[in-house]
């Protein structure tokens, strides 16, 4: 029996972390956030490490690893709040395309030459009457809060949870960037006016598989981001002095840090198991994904608030940059389903709702 990461999985996390530490510094994040540069170089570097094709089979040009490896990588990406289309292009899109049996684009995705965004929000909970309808084999309507404003193509939710492929350059598709609190990732609105779309799947299970995979790595992203915030809180408290002592020696501050650590540490096991369960398609996989996602939303939110408080006034400023982590966690909480919505799904999976 072995519950934990294998040597290979630890090495994978280490190598991704090393790349991120060198290439995704806070200054680099600021440049992307300010719009001075895109995340293209970072994604190129990650793709060269195999991350774009992490879960794509070797036969299709990928690395052929599973969802446990995906959460391990995602945790590192969250820790460094790496700007990248990892969730959409490396996880949700390949999961959907593989489940639907559309393998022709996977090689380009794996190579990092094709970025695929995802517009599934309306399948989870439509806002503002967003949605598309089909007429003359083309899509009309709008989809909100789609992943990745720089994608080359999108997988989009149809009127009945079908999935379509739409090239970003398709006539009749207008893309509008939506500014959010989280500037480490790009979100957009897709407006369709008789835009050509290629059917990918009519099976609601295919979309669900994509959403599950996305939620799982999103939970891992929040885990990593929250761990980074905890580490920064402890480090700051160890050097900040007031009343002639480091504030880390005050019980009030220590207890805040202990509360963060004790809520966060068990999350690591839940996230690992969720990745494992998805890889192995265990009977409790979907339920575990829902719980991991919703629970990490709650714990990471607590850590985000508490770590900021430990930093005192500095935590509230732009100077230390802590807010980038705070906002990444805030965005993760809402995208792919708010914790309340995800818990309702968990209830439904257990037949707790008639």
């Amino acid at each position, binding site marked *: 029996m072995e519950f934990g990461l294998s040597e290979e999985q630890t090495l994978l996390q280490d190598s991704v972390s090393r790349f991120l530490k060198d290439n995704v510094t806070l200054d680099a994040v600021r440049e992307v956030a300010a719009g001075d540069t895109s995340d293209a170089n970072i994604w190129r570097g990650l793709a060269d490490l195999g991350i774009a094709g992490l879960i794509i089979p070797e036969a299709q040009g990928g690395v052929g690893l599973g969802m446990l490896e995906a959460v391990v990588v995602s945790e590192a990406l969250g820790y460094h709040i790496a700007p990248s289309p990892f969730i959409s292009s490396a996880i949700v899109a390949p999961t959907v395309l593989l489940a639907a049996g559309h393998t022709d684009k996977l090689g380009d995705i794996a190579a990092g030459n094709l970025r695929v965004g995802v517009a599934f929000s309306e399948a989870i909970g439509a806002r503002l009457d967003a949605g598309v309808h089909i007429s003359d084999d083309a899509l009309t309507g709008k989809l909100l809060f789609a992943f990745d404003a720089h994608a080359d193509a999108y997988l989009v939710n149809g009127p009945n949870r079908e999935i379509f492929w739409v090239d970003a350059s398709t006539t009749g598709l207008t893309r509008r960037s939506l500014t959010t609190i989280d500037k480490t990732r790009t979100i957009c609105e897709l407006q369709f006016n008789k835009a050509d779309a290629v059917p990918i799947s009519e099976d609601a299970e295919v979309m669900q598989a994509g959403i599950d995979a996305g939620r799982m790595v999103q939970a891992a992203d929040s885990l990593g981001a929250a761990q980074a915030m905890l580490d920064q809180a402890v480090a700051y408290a160890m050097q900040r002095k007031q009343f002639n002592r480091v504030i880390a*020696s005050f019980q009030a501050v220590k207890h805040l840090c202990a509360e963060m650590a004790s809520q966060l540490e068990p999350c690591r096991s839940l996230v690992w198991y969720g990745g494992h369960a998805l890889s192995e398609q265990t009977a409790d996989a979907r339920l575990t994904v829902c719980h991991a996602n919703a629970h990490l939303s709650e714990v990471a939110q607590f850590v985000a608030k508490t770590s900021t408080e430990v930093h005192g006034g500095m935590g509230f400023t732009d100077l230390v940059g802590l807010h980038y982590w705070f906002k990444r966690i805030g965005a993760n909480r809402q995208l792919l389903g708010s914790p309340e919505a995800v818990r309702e799904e968990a209830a439904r999976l257990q037949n707790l709702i008639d």
Partner: protein
Amino acid sequence: MDLSYGPTFDAFREEVRTFIATHKDQQPKHGAGPKSEEARSWQATLIKNGYHSRTIPKAYGGFGAEPDIIKSRIIAEEFSAAQMNTGFSGQGISMLTPVLLEMGTESQKQQFIEKTIHGDIIWCQGYSEPGAGSDLASLTTKAELDGDEWVINGQKIWTSTAHISDWIFCLVRTEPEAPKHQGISFLLFKMDTPGIEVRPLVDMTGSANFNEVFFTDVRVPKDQIVGQRGQGWQVANAILGHERGSLAPPDAAMTRLNGVIRLMREETVAGERVIDNPIFRDRLLKLQGRVLAMQYNDMRLLSAKINKQTDTQLAGMVVKLIGTELRHEIECLGIDVMGEIGISYEDNPYLRGNGSWQYQYMYFLGLIIGGGTSQIQKNIISERGLGMPKEPKIATVGA
């Protein structure tokens, strides 16, 4: 990630199941006291077959098996699944026996271990005092040497089972001049020694789960000491860690949570089942997520024990803090689900689950405080887990 115990353990699991199937009717009846013949004979059967005191050497009355974490886990799993009586527990078995095995003299091992695990000697633990709770090392119950005897004066509190115990293992101050951690000794003595008075301490549940124990010129033979004079703190700390995590096992939390689900399906408010109320349902699901995290945390700890990994120190430290708070909230939801019915207690005809929801709700508040309060746990987690400094000492205390 490999969650199976492997095929080599399947045979062992079969063996345990066979034992359970063939011995189920020999279990003592519910409520059979620890001194009853049926409880004692069941205990002997468990030890003889390796289902209690499994790794205690045969020379001291145990089963004498090599320690095997997975086998112990399989036994616990199968006994729990079959709701099988697991034999005697208590502080003599869980706390003192490991101490004696590690630090006792040969004659102490011979004298006490076999009788303890067979239930011939029931022990209580004399640690906490009215003035020494979280700061246990400041205890003031004193023992002075007079010829060949210790003379003990002072008071202990929170002493579970003192009223039915035959012996006590007790921390006393023997070197009043030494620094507080170096002036304590670990003594063993009989509870019927003249000068001992036990008063039951009724707690908020209405039960007397604890006692106060008073010592007035209690005379104890000099050699009834474990370790050297002044080493009592180290002796006690060798095992205090054993107690904490076991106060809040996540599997038990999940069992209670499933009880809440049953309750929510059965109870109705104005004709509507509580499970159909989205507010209660969300509370339930939130708790379920938290329990799941603790279950996988537990699995990680088990795996670390089996594979001798050392990166789970923090994961282990949080179990008592999170587990007891979590359990308190689960019991609270059980009560809230019932509303007014939830305040029923004792002989109320509308009582649910034998009154266990209110009882456990209060009992777990006791566990949040006992065994190292939540605040002490947070000190431990921040200091030993996160490397934060201790609070500086104030030079003059109570001056």
